[in-house]
């Protein structure tokens, strides 16, 4: 192995581990395991292959694929060339991939066999860059030497994570090597990660939670065990995964844990023997459920982390016995990783918008100007509790979390408004937690609104699965505020919440 340049790039974490513990397991997926040395060699092969297709420093590379060691190796290959990777989960339909590609303008779009089939079946737009499969790409690089590493600077962009955009266009959150490394170093120290750890990777790679799973593992020389995309609908299989694969560190949205508790029997078998750390982030964890988890797992450290994709994790809170009597919301804690948090335009009760500034905050949105000085305005409302811990109180705007996924109703409305049977539409979230549902109120062009199946089909053609509407109702018009916007509180008041169905 060649000695990489001195500059601190995110991709050095894997290479450093490959040099110091080449035979240690790096990635597990199902029955397969890849050692650090194997993963490092794959990254070198993909670097040669990407270079052969013309990818150079600064180029974006889009990867639309299910989780795999190849995907991870490809992202590391891109970084070694100084390129910028952007991962997209299979939940994205081809048309959304093409829409994202139109703004990212990738030098290459890499996919797996399933992605290639889905794109072919739906008619991949001729204007979009062609797709290349992992196999085809590797063939391009066969027998070529890996190119020298590009000397990246800490402020260079490393990856772009696409998230729902309120105007209808997905937004590409662009993070630098320094942004990510600062977060990873803090997170590794906070959780005490070591080479003996086995981290579960539950989140899709386009969710920032995966950054900790992958790079935290590489930093510690630990192993990351990829939860297959296929298991997302099987709570009891997820529980089996946690126990049987001897996971020591679990990180997911609360929705996943709630589902495992309610339908997978998570709390019935006591604490998973190997588990020592459980982290949740991305949405509020109902206090009662978090405390049940604490009671069932007395030896497991529980962390509530906070931060939109734009900031990485910027605040954190570890639950202690002091929480056992808590009745209010779980705090999101204090700023971490050198970040500064301030509350802007606080009301009389101390509630204000959470503004984050510091080393983990993104460079900006891809294709737009860099984030101006003054920090990132999250749109989240917060307040300090008596102990000086930050509490999350909700949103300033309409962005919502639906079963752990970040959803802008505006992006769904933009898609639905292109349906010929729809004159006007508003999408609202009804219910909370696992019962949260996306509901469309439709003003039809004709006498009858399109049916639910027709709207689902229309959504599914352009949006990720978690943004497909769950129910629909018709209205003659939408209520408006004085300045002409949809009056969502009034609209919500007209809708009856879904009755809670019997638990299976």
């Amino acid at each position, binding site marked *: 192995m060649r000695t990489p340049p001195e500059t601190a790039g995110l991709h050095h974490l894997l290479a450093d581990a490959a040099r110091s513990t080449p035979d240690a397991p790096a990635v597990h997926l199902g029955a397969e395991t890849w050692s650090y040395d194997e993963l490092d060699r794959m990254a070198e092969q993909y670097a040669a292959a990407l270079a052969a297709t013309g990818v150079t420093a600064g180029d974006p590379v889009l990867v639309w694929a299910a989780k795999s060691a190849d995907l991870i190796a490809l992202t590391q290959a891109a970084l070694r060339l100084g390129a910028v990777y952007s991962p997209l989960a299979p939940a994205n*339909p081809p048309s959304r991939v093409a829409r994202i590609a139109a703004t990212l303008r990738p030098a290459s779009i890499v996919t797996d066999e399933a992605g290639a089939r889905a794109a072919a079946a739906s008619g991949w737009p001729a204007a979009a860059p062609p797709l290349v499969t992992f196999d085809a790409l590797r063939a391009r690089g066969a027998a070529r030497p890996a190119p020298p590493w590009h000397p990246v600077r800490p402020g260079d962009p490393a990856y772009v994570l696409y998230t729902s955009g309120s105007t209808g266009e997905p937004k590409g959150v662009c993070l630098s090597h320094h942004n990510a490394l600062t977060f990873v170093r803090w997170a590794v120290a906070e959780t005490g990660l070591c080479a003996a750890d086995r981290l579960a990777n539950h989140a899709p790679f386009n969710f920032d939670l995966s950054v900790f799973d992958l790079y935290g593992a590489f930093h510690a020389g630990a192993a990351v065990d990829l939860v*297959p*995309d*296929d*298991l*997302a*609908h*099987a*709570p*009891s*299989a997820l529980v*089996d995964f946690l126990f049987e694969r001897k996971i020591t560190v679990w990180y997911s949205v609360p929705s996943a844990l709630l*589902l495992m508790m309610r*339908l997978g029997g998570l709390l019935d078998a006591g604490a998973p023997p190997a588990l020592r750390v459980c982290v949740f982030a991305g949405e509020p964890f109902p206090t009662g459920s978090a405390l049940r988890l604490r009671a069932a797992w007395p030896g497991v450290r529980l962390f509530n982390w906070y931060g939109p994709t734009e900031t990485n994790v910027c605040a954190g809170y570890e639950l202690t016995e002091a929480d056992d009597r808590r009745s209010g919301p779980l705090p999101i804690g204090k700023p971490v990783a050198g970040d500064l948090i301030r509350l802007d335009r606080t009301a009389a009760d101390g509630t204000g918008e959470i503004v984050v500034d510091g080393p983990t905050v993104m460079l900006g949105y891809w294709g737009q100007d860099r984030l101006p000085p003054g920090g990132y305005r999250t749109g989240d409302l917060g307040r300090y509790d008596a102990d000086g811990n930050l509490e999350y109180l909700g949103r300033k705007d309409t962005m919502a979390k639906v*079963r752990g996924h970040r959803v802008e109703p505006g992006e769904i409305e933009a898609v639905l408004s292109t349906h010929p049977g729809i004159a006007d539409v508003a999408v609202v979230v009804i219910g909370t937690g*696992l019962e949260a549902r996306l509901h469309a109120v439709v003003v039809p062009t004709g006498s009858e609104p399109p*049916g*639910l*199946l*027709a709207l*689902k*089909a229309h*959504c*599914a053609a352009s949006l990720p*699965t*978690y943004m*497909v*509407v*769950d129910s629909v109702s018709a209205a003659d018009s939408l209520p408006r505020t004085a300045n002409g916007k949809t009056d969502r509180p009034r609209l919500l008041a007209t809708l009856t919440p879904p009755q809670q*169905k*019997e638990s*299976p």
Partner: protein
Amino acid sequence: MTDLDRAKILSKLHDYVVAELLDGKDVEQFETTTPLLDWGLLNSIETARLVAFVRQELGVRVPPTDMVKRNFQNLERITDLLLSLRDSSA
């Protein structure tokens, strides 16, 4: 378990989805190949409820290892799964 043929399973599953997931609407448009996962008709909770229904009404127990996406794409795939489980337990 007696005479659990394909048509009978499909019919039971069809009636379940129409009643429980579609509120009895869109019956004409709903087919046995309608995507259940891609269109968000089945999420984790609804999948678990469907599996409970299958256990009670059809007497087939779906093990956790079979609760994977490829088996729940549409009613035809679910029926394939249930028939294979019935055959292996017979």
